[in-house]
């Protein structure tokens, strides 16, 4: 396609570094900036809600059970009189914590496995990659269920399950990048001078795959939020009374809630879709910013 479709490519002076050019490309991407404008307020709201919202997520008010949205309860209240807005905000916080921690763990595992496969001999590489193939055979949700049956419910088991599920794709991408890097002169020289595995991994490998890691981490946060919500929706993730968007949606499995109290499940559903959409916009923007040749359609 033509250069005109690449925002900000032609007009930037060539003297700037690659990072500055990436940032310029990112800020010129309207969808990505829109994602940022949606996502930042969500993050601020879920992390500070105690300061400005009068209700707590687990406070029971028996005088307002199953009430629709009102001035006191903006998003209504649920079957035991808890404030839906407060639960939505707390649920968002739980989803973010689960997503960010599990992505951090899978980043570490994925990077280590991928880079070890790339820098070690054929045997280690083959073994690790066959294991990755195996982990990718099953559809993710099925694997998620198998792991969930072992781990049980709760925040930490859910984090564990999601991190174990998410690293194989990343390790493949890291391996592909580092296999290429391994043949470059500065790496060959460094090895010739006796560089150890730690030096290769963190001195050469990490800086040269940082773009993969950043893009993967962003998109994977959205994915992890969806996985957590899915697990909790099936009753296998975050267990009540702790709030999560997934287990708030789970309330709608009861016909009465689904039909008569739609505010109890529509708001968490909308929050989920909006957040995931915003993060995906940001992630796509980052990918285009780092690699303007990819994904031109």
């Amino acid at each position, binding site marked *: 396609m033509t250069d005109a479709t690449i925002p900000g490519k032609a007009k930037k002076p060539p003297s700037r570094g690659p990072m500055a050019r990436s940032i310029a490309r990112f800020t010129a991407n309207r969808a990505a900036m829109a994602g940022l404008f949606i996502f930042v307020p969500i993050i601020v709201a879920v992390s500070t809600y105690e300061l400005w919202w009068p209700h707590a997520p687990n406070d029971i008010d028996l005088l307002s059970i199953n009430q629709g949205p009102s001035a006191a309860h903006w998003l209504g209240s649920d079957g035991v009189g808890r404030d839906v807005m407060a639960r939505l905000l707390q649920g968002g916080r739980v989803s973010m914590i689960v997503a960010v921690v599990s992505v951090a763990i899978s980043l570490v595992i994925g990077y280590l496995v991928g880079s070890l496969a790339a820098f070690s001999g054929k045997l280690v590489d083959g073994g690790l990659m066959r294991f990755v193939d195996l982990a990718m055979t099953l559809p993710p949700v099925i694997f998620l*269920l198998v792991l969930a049956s072992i781990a049980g419910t709760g925040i930490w088991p859910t984090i564990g399950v999601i991190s174990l599920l998410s690293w194989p794709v990343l390790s493949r991408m890291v391996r592909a990048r580092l296999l290429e890097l391994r043949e470059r002169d500065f790496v060959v020289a460094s090895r010739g001078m006796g560089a150890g595995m730690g030096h290769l991994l963190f001195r050469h490998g990490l800086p040269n795959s940082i773009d993969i890691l950043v893009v993967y981490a962003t998109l994977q946060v959205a994915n992890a939020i969806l996985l957590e919500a899915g697990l909790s929706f099936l009753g296998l993730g975050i267990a009540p009374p702790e709030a999560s968007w997934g287990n708030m949606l789970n309330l709608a499995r009861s016909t009465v809630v689904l039909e008569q109290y739609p505010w109890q499940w529509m708001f968490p559903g909308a929050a989920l*879709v909006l957040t*995931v959409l915003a993060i995906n916009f940001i992630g796509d923007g980052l990918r285009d910013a780092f690699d303007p040749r990819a994904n031109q359609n």
Partner: protein
Amino acid sequence: MGFYVARRTAVGLLMLVALSVLIFVLLRLAPGDPVDAYINPSAPLSLDELAALRERLGLNDPLPLQYFGWAAAAISGDFGYSIQSAGQPVLPLVLSRVGPTVILMASGLAIAIVVGLAAGTLSAVRRNSAMDVGLSVGSFLAISSPPFVTALVGLYVFSVQLRWAPSGGMLTPGVPFSVADLLAHLILPAFLLSLTHGALIMRYMRSSMLEVLNQDYVRTARAKGVREFWVIVKHAARNALLPVVTLIGSSIGMAIGGAIFLESVFNWPGMGLLLVNAVKARDYPVIMCATLIIGAFVIAVNLLTDLVYAAIDPRVKVG
């Protein structure tokens, strides 16, 4: 070609065996004692009897030996007994759920493929028109909405508000089987299942078509005076379809994930519902058997995708 098929099949079988080892080891690491499943709650066993039972079941053997014992039984069709449904053999239980899931997935994917290919082609041909923009926004929304949210919204809109479709199950209980009844129950979950995959196929088809429409052979066809409709359908779409076939293959595997959520929202008596209930009850024999059957299915579909790709793309030479 024959050699290629044989080699790929062998690799697929190896993957299946490795998968069974992985799941077996994972489930053995799980908390809880498998021997609990054999205890009748109204007649507790003494510790000695428990030890004897454990010995008889081979639970004291080293893990590899246990695996071979399990595998030997599994090959002969004995996957053990379900824990939650009162000692029912696992294999018939799981197999009875395959049919409903296949019906749901096949109809969902059929809708997704037909609508996705048509919408993607139209979108590419009428590039940047209002319809193209509308379809692109819609597809982005469909891809970002998880199946459990679309399932709830669909159920709320079409079953609760409009009363166009029944709210769950596969057949009306107490009524003799009829295809119309099945279709009435099928259409809503199948449509909802098709959303994500239809949107993905549409986006893929659109970008693939855009690439093909710039090719010389399309210009040649136009220059020869072929009618525009046939240029699009015969010359462009057929070539644009090649990369989409791979995507369709992988959607079949992914659709199982979506089907699980739709089955549990719509109470559709398929594998997904069975698996979710088995996970909740920690019914490991059922989990093991169901995941293996799903794994075998996915491996077979991947193999078929590669073969179809080799068959329709003249540039891929195998054998």
